[in-house]
C-alpha cells in the first residue's frame, strides 16, 4: 500500500466516522493549485474543515503532530479561498484535525481534535 492509498483510506475512515457522529460531509478533497482541504463538513450551522493525517508508525511522532504551524497557515489560506469560491457565509467555522494510526491490517486508532487551531 503506497502513501497515496494510505492517505485515501484514512480519509475514507474519517468521513465514515464524521457521518457516524452526526456531521454532514459536503465536500472531499476540495483542491486548488496551492493545496487541498481533505474534508468539508457541516456540524449544525458550523462549517468544519478537516485535515486528516494517517500514519503507520509512531517513528515520526503522532499523526496530528504533522499539522505544523506552516501547514495550519496553508489550511487557513485554503479556507479563505473555499469561502470565497463557494460564496457561503457560515455562522461559525472550525478547523478540526483527525489523526489516524494504523495498528494492524484491520485495526486503527482515530483521534478527533475539534477546534484544533484558529487564525490567531
Amino acid at each position, binding site marked *: 500500500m503506497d502513501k497515496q492509498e494510505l492517505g485515501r483510506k484514512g480519509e475514507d475512515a474519517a468521513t465514515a466516522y464524521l457521518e457516524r457522529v452526526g456531521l454532514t460531509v459536503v465536500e472531499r478533497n476540495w483542491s486548488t493549485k496551492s493545496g487541498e482541504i481533505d474534508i468539508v463538513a457541516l456540524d449544525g450551522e458550523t462549517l468544519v474543515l478537516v485535515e486528516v493525517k494517517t500514519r503507520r508508525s509512531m517513528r515520526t511522532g503522532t499523526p496530528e503532530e504533522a499539522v505544523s504551524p506552516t501547514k495550519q497557515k496553508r489550511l487557513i489560506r485554503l479556507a479563505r479561498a473555499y*469561502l470565497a469560491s463557494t460564496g457561503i457565509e457560515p455562522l*461559525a*467555522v472550525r478547523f478540526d484535525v483527525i489523526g489516524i494510526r494504523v495498528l494492524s491490517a484491520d485495526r486503527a486508532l482515530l483521534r478527533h481534535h475539534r477546534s484544533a487551531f484558529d487564525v*490567531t
Partner: protein
Amino acid sequence: MSDRCGQATIRTGTLQGVDAVPVEVQVDVGRGLPAFRIVGLGDVAVQEARERVRSAIRSCGLRFPDCRVTVNLAPAPLRKHGTGFDLPIAAGILVATGQVDENSVGRSWLTGELALDGGIRPVNGILSHAIAAAREQRVLVCSSDADHEIRAVDSLHWRGINDLVDISGTEVAVQGHLRIVSQECTMDIGAIAGHMSAKRALEVAAAGGLNLLMVGPPGSGKTMLARCLPGILPPMSAVEALETAVVHSVAGLSPSQVLNGTRPFRAPHHASTLRGLVGGGSPVRPGEVSLAHNGVLFLDELPEFGPSTLQALRQPMEDRRITLVRAEGRIELPADFMFVAAANPCPCGYLGDPSKHCTCTDGSISRYANRIGGPVMDRIDICLRVDRIDPGLMMNAKDGSESVTMRSRVVEARRIADTRNCKNRFLSGTVLLGACNLDPGMLRHVEDIARNAHLSGRGITRLMRVARTIADLETSESVKHEHLDEAASYRLMESI
C-alpha cells in the same frame, strides 16, 4: 448547540499608579474564520489572557465560540497591564454568545485573573478597583479571596466569586464599611531599658510627625527604638488606613495589618535600588516611600545609602507625594511619611563612645558625615545621640506598657495641634510665630540660641516647630523657656 453571534460590553479598569482607570472591554463575536484577537494596547499578560480565557470557558462546561472573536480594550490609546482582564474578557464572550444573561454583569465592574480550570484568582490593586467601582456606583465582581480587603471601602457593593460559572449568579452584593477595630503595639517601648532622653525625643517626634535622626555606636539600640514608633504613633483614621492600604494592595502586599490601623513601618536595606525606594518600573510599582505612606520610613545606616538614592528622597519629603514622569504621562503616588534614620558617628562607629576607642582618621570621619548630604540633613527636625547603655540597666529591663501611655500623650498633643488647622511639621513663617506665642524675653532667647548655634533661617523654623510640639505635649498655650531649651538640645547636627 449553534453558536450565536453578538456583542457585549463589560466595565473593568487598569491600574495607573494607585488609581484604577476605567476601561471598557468590548467583545464582538462575529462571522468569519475562527480567531481570537485582543486589541487596545494590552501588555504581554493581557495577550496571554487568550489562552486562560479559552481554557477556563471550556473547563467550566461552557462553549468557546468557533467564530471570529475580537476584543477591544477602550480607550485604545491607554496602556493596559496585568491579568485582571481575564474575567471581564471571559464574561464578555459569554454574554455575547448568550451563555450568560447580560443583566448579571450589567451594572458591574469586573476584575480577576482566571485559572485554567475556571477558578478566579485575586489581582493586585483590588482596593483601587473597589474604590473606582464605588465611585461609579457599580457592583464589583472579583475573587472572593479579596473579601476582607474590599470590605474596607465605604458604600461599595460587591460580589465575590470562586469560579467563572458563578458569574451568572445574582446573589446579594454586600455593602462595605471600614471600622478601625483594634490594634496592639508590635513592640513596646517599655521593653527597652534606659534611653530616657531618646524615648522622650521619640515621643516629641511622634507628636509632631517630625523627621528624626539618631546617631550612635553600633548596638546602642537605635533600630529597636525606631521599631517602637508605630506603637506610639496615634492609630490611623479610617481615611488614612484606606489610603495606605490602597498602596499596599497595588504593590501586592497584604493590607490587612494596615486596615487594622497600624501605621506601616518600612525599613529598606541600604542596598535598595532607586526604583525600589521611590517607585517605578512598568507598570509602575509603588516604592518604599509610598508603602510608608502615613507611617514611618526608617533608613538604618543612613550614610551607606547611595547619594542619588538620598537625593531622590528630597521631593517626597517636601511634597508628601512622589511624581514619576514617563512617556505615558505623569503618575503620582502618595508618600507622606515620617522620616527616621540611624547612623553611626564615624566609619568604625565608636566616635565619642566613652568605653571604646575610635580608630578613624579625621578625614574618614568628615567624608562619612558628608555622605548624607546637606539637603537631607536640612530636613531633619530632631537629631539626637543614642549611647550604649550600662550593662546593669540592661539586666533590669522589664516588660513595661509605656507605649500605651506615651501614645495617649501623643494623641492629646496632636489634638491640640489640630486646633491650629495646620500640622506642626508644616508650620512656618508668621503662622508658626503666632502659634508659638512668644513674649519679648523669649524672642531674645531664640535669637541667642540661633546666634550661638549659627542656625540658618530653615534651622530656626525647625527649632520653633520642635519647641511648639514640646509645648503641645505639655499642653501649654505658649512656648516656654524650657520647651525651647529642650528643642535646642535636639539640634545635634549643628555641632557635628
